């Protein structure tokens, strides 16, 4: 083996790890809302992926209609998604949740099944609604960043957009963790997720607190939708594939752990890119799911989460 071969092996590996890690930031942002919903309310939101696509459509529509730089669409889409998340939780999901079932003395099976059925139905309504409004054609948020790259050396570079996503993911997840740790509402979210009845004894209004958590989850889905629209084309039925991806990341990192979501995203990203580099594009998805299976078999609580109580 010549020095040249070694050099290129090293470059391949470095490229794979770098761009995989960058991809991980993108995965983490797609997944954090799902992690938050499950971590706080034990709610599995099957419409999560569809909300991401809804946000992507909102961004694309605003960007096209206004001619503004795509980044400005975030100013609208994030608060709008927060409000939608708050409203859907308050008006719908709070009444069919695990906690509602407990309160009514219903079997826990209802508490688990009802939200699954309702969010599955919501997923269908959302995707069909988007089909009606936007048609089945693919679309994207037009921007000139998609092909820009940062060169680290002659043969090593990372996509500017992916780098931006990675930074955004790190900042957002870090900010979210800090918010949960240090603010009154963050503490209330943790308390209500641990023991709703005792949280109420502290003066916490759990329906409001769950709704804030859901609002934040959908606001993060809004940012994720923006990123999806910036980096690829999408159509109304793409939601479930993002949901599946988010499930993978959340299971990898550990349910309910925000840092785990970032680590899970990075691990999945690196594995997929390396598998693509060495075994061809077809191996990407397979390798990703193999890793998820392995983690489930060896460390079912995920990479970072502590074993549940």
């Amino acid at each position, binding site marked *: 083996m010549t020095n040249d071969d070694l050099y290129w092996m090293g470059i391949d590996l470095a490229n794979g790890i770098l761009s995989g890690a960058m991809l991980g930031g993108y995965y983490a942002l797609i997944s954090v809302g799902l992690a938050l919903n499950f971590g706080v309310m034990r709610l599995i939101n099957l419409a999560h992926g569809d909300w991401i696509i809804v946000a992507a459509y909102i961004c694309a529509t605003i960007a096209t209609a206004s001619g503004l730089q795509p980044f400005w669409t975030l100013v609208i889409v994030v608060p709008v998604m927060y409000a939608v998340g708050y409203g859907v939780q308050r008006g719908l999901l709070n009444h069919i949740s695990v906690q509602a079932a407990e309160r009514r*003395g219903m079997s826990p099976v209802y508490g688990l099944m009802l939200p699954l059925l309702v969010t599955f139905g919501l997923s269908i309504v959302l995707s069909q609604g988007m089909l009606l409004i936007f048609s089945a054609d693919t679309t994207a948020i037009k921007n000139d960043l998609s092909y820009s790259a940062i060169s680290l050396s002659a043969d090593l570079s990372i996509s500017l957009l992916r780098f931006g996503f990675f930074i955004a993911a790190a900042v957002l997840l870090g900010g979210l963790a800090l918010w949960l740790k240090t603010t009154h509402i963050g*503490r209330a979210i943790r308390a209500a997720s*641990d023991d709703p009845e005792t949280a*109420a*004894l*502290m003066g916490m209004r759990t329906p409001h607190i769950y709704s804030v958590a859901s609002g934040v989850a959908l606001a993060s889905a809004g940012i994720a939708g923006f990123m999806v629209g910036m980096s690829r084309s999408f159509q109304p039925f793409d939601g479930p594939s993002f949901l599946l991806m988010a499930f993978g990341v959340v299971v990898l990192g550990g349910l309910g752990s925000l840092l785990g979501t970032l680590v899970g995203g990075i691990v999945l990203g690196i594995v997929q890119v390396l598998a693509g580099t060495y075994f061809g594009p077809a191996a990407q998805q397979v390798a990703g799911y193999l890793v998820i299976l392995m983690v489930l078999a060896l460390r079912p609580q995920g990479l970072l989460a502590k074993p549940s109580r």
Partner: protein
Amino acid sequence: MSTSAAETAKAGATILAGAAAAPPAAAGVPDLRINSLSAYYGELRAVHDVSLELRRGDVLAIIGANGAGKSTLLRSMVGLVNHGARSHTRGSIEFDGKRLDKLSPAEIVDAGVTLVPEGRRLFARMSVEDNLLAGAYLPRCRPTIPRKLEEIYSLFPRLRERKSQLVSQMSGGEQQMVAIGRALMSSPKLIAFDELSLGLSPAMVEEIYKNLSAIIAGGAIGILVEQDLKRALGACTRFCVMLEGSIVLEGRPQDVRVEDITAAYFGSTHPHSRSEAPGARDARG
């Protein structure tokens, strides 16, 4: 304990300074009035036609065997029985002129009534200080947080040493201190303790009871549900004995013979029977 008893008493007195500073209720009008309260879990009636009146400064001990309805009475007062379709109450609970039985648990805390629940029910994945801060969630409590924390730490110095420790890693007694501190963070005007000494070491019970009089001093109402008869009678100004959901005996501890209380506790018709004393700490089992 490194603080002297005098310091402790001072800390306890200031803890409820908010309550003491409130305008005194008109003479003769009780601050807490429970009127013909019954509480049901589905078809099961756990509390039957209970009436009680308490004024600022009263410490009521509710005594009774397991299943007598003591906890349900406390839970009714903080809105946990009316909350949900499985259980409900009849009758009324008035505090400071507000109908507590019409309010949600969160609104009841805001009205100044709080419960230290049985089994402590701390937020296990949070630190000591985060648990205390959770107790000050209501907007009216937030401006006084630094002062309250300081008061609780001087009442229970070992909490200050361990403020960043996860509560799940602490002993039962330390957890009970956190639970009491958490309830005090909301500056309650009525504080109820459910099974305060259950499962704690005698030394720990001693330390908590030593501070208890200080905690309840200063114009608040205290309600104690306690299996340990001797402790409860030593700490209260009034007591009532519950049997099968009803109050069967009430009065002031100095006016009643322990034998009569024991008899009422067991529902015995022989007031002088000396069967098993309820003061034993394992009376629950």
